[in-house]
């Protein structure tokens, strides 16, 4: 349910678990622990469909409906001023990036430590229509402020910048008087895609992460505000990452709703709780631009599931595909400065060298190009294919070189 190595289960079928109890251990640096979001009994550990469409080992817990908390959870005041203790706690609490990609937060802090002079706190929603960041900031401003201080301390950075989109004026007016001196507020125009790390760093600080590089390369680290809040909660009460805000919306629902979900809840339950009668024909986990559409609603919500979109049939527009008319809209709008019209042609022609020369691998897969294409070409969709081809080509070349070396 996150990027990196799968974690190792600590429970067996039949184990009684409490809410917040650790049920799986992180394996290696880029991995995260898992905790039970409910109290109940483990009923199965088996491969289960996830939002990405593949099967992953999942721990199925039958809730007893009581939500008895794990008694061992306690505040961790020792982490207030000790970076190492904080990183260990963040790791133990299973905290990952909650804006979408789900990179384990402890690993991120480690990569930024000593390199980052500025830490960015990302309150700019990653996708249109999602308000999870916004609402979590409103509801948990003390934790947000506390968490920002903690992360600055852990990264060893001097300055913090809280980035919020300008249409979230409530959050701006609530937070701006509360911010300490070393954290500045940066109000950004509302735009997509700026919740992405590279765009956010560029828009807020004017720094450009080099191609293939990390935010730490330009002295930055980026944390989503919900992640920040989770860090503060872990310190204040020992609560691991077991729930999150999720925007449930879409044309198939009577009323959109922002809900707090237990991580691991099947999407179907979440939808039913918002609108018991809904009959969606297309359901997207994540946002409408980059989320994945589900073919089975029993998949669990994940740590990065910030939105669920349930669309009625009429939203799934079947539109005729035309040919590229070279209108230039895609190139005009690409946040990375790529030329999708040419890339599309090169993918079709299988021109791998050209794909490299035109920097296909810098593509964010944000979907802006395909969104605006009047010919409705599957631009970024084909780029995924192109990237896979490049990866395969790279692997083949490495294997060849290896073989040659051995032959010599």
């Amino acid at each position, binding site marked *: 349910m996150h990027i990196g190595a799968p974690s190792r289960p600590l429970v067996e079928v039949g184990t009684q678990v409490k809410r917040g109890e650790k049920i799986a251990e992180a394996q290696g640096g880029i991995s995260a622990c898992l905790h039970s979001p409910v109290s109940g009994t483990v009923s199965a550990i088996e491969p289960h469909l996830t939002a990405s469409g593949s099967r992953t080992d999942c721990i199925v817990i039958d809730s007893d409906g009581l939500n008895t908390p794990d008694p061992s959870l306690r505040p961790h005041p020792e982490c207030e001023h000790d970076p190492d203790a904080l990183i260990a706690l963040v790791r133990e609490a299973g905290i990952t990036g909650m804006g979408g990609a789900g990179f384990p937060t402890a690993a991120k802090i480690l990569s930024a430590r000593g390199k980052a002079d500025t830490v960015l706190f990302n309150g700019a929603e990653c996708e249109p229509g999602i308000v999870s960041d916004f609402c979590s900031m409103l509801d948990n401003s003390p934790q947000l402020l506390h968490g920002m201080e903690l992360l600055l301390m852990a990264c060893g950075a001097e300055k913090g910048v809280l980035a919020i989109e300008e249409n979230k004026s409530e959050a701006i007016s609530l937070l701006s008087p509360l911010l300490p001196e070393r954290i500045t507020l940066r109000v950004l125009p509302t735009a997509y895609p700026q919740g992405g790390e590279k765009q956010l760093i560029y828009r807020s600080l004017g720094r450009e992460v080099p191609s293939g590089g990390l935010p730490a390369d330009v002295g930055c680290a980026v944390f989503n505000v919900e992640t920040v809040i989770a860090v503060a909660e872990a310190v204040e009460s020992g609560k691991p990452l077991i729930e999150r805000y999720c925007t449930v919306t879409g044309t198939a629902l009577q009323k959109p709703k922002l809900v707090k979900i237990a991580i691991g809840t099947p999407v179907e339950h979440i939808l039913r709780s918002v609108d018991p009668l809904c009959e969606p024909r*297309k359901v997207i986990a994540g946002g409408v631009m*980059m989320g994945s*559409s589900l073919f089975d609603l029993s998949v669990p919500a994940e740590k990065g599931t910030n939105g669920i979109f349930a669309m009625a049939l009429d939203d799934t527009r079947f539109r005729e595909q035309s040919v590229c008319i*070279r209108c230039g809209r895609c*190139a*005009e709008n690409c946040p990375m400065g790529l*030329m999708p019209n040419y890339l599309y042609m090169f993918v079709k022609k299988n021109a791998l060298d050209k794909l490299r020369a035109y*920097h296909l691998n810098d593509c964010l897969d944000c*979907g802006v190009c395909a*969104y605006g294409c009047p010919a409705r070409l599957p631009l970024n969709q084909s780029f995924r294919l192109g990237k896979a081809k490049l990866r395969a080509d790279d692997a083949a070349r490495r294997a060849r070189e290896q073989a040659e070396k051995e032959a010599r």
Partner: protein
Amino acid sequence: MEEKKLYVSSGPHIRGKESVSSLMLSVLLALLPALLAGVYLFGLRALWVVLVSVGSCELFEWGWCALTHRQNTLRDLSAAVTGLLLGLSLSPTVPLWLPPVGAFFAIVVVKQLYGGLGKNFLNPALAGRCFLFAWAPLMSSWVAPRCADAVSAATPLAVMKTLSLPPESLLSSFLGFKGGCIGEVSAAALLLGAAFLLLRGVIRLRIPLSYLLTVAVLTFLFPRGNERILWMSHQLLSGGLLLGAFFMATDYVTSPTTARGQLLYGVFCGVLTVLIRYFGSYPEGVSFSILIMNLLVWTLDRLHMRRVFGHGKEART
């Protein structure tokens, strides 16, 4: 919801409203004022010329698709746009068998033989028109007392030779009371349509503006005669310049897709237009300039790619 199937696709799960046909429809609408002005000025005969041109373009497009067993592409409206542009850039007095000849060249030779919409590297309407130009004997048959192409397009040429300004006032030239091709004469109508396209976001100002500015600057700097401003204004208003700059040079397929490429494209079009108008033997500078620049579009694109994010030497602050 268990029994019902779910639709699955990969993101983005929403799409913009614009489509190829909606864009083409906008261009058709934007050319309507010019057509109406032409019909008003030259009578119903002009309407016939345009209708025959549009009809024959549609027919050739349909015929080609039928012949090659391809999906009928009439609905994308691109053939209609080609037909309308071709018709508007003809003299109202041409024999009615002429537009179909141009239409055949435009649709079949220039567009479809190169693979259809999006693949042609010359603007079909312009190529069709120039094809008709190139068959020199037809040229003379276009000349008519009030509205010969020679009056509008050749007047600058004549003026250049005699160093005098055209007889019309600037205002009547702006409104369209002068000789010329059906859709070229009324600058007012063309600008109205162009404004619509710009506001609708169908075209951008880069190409037309750099094109017109270049022509303006060059004709201002090198006037024939003493009245710089008047000379420049007549140059801007006469011939196919406005139709070309706003409706032909901006053709998506045959113009660059990069911002800087587009600016340069406009500038070069302007330089070529003035050169041909001053020194060429043809009266028409605009069509040939744009066609010549069409050939350089891919080069311009390649030379003027945007800097890819994260590949700069220095991050901007």
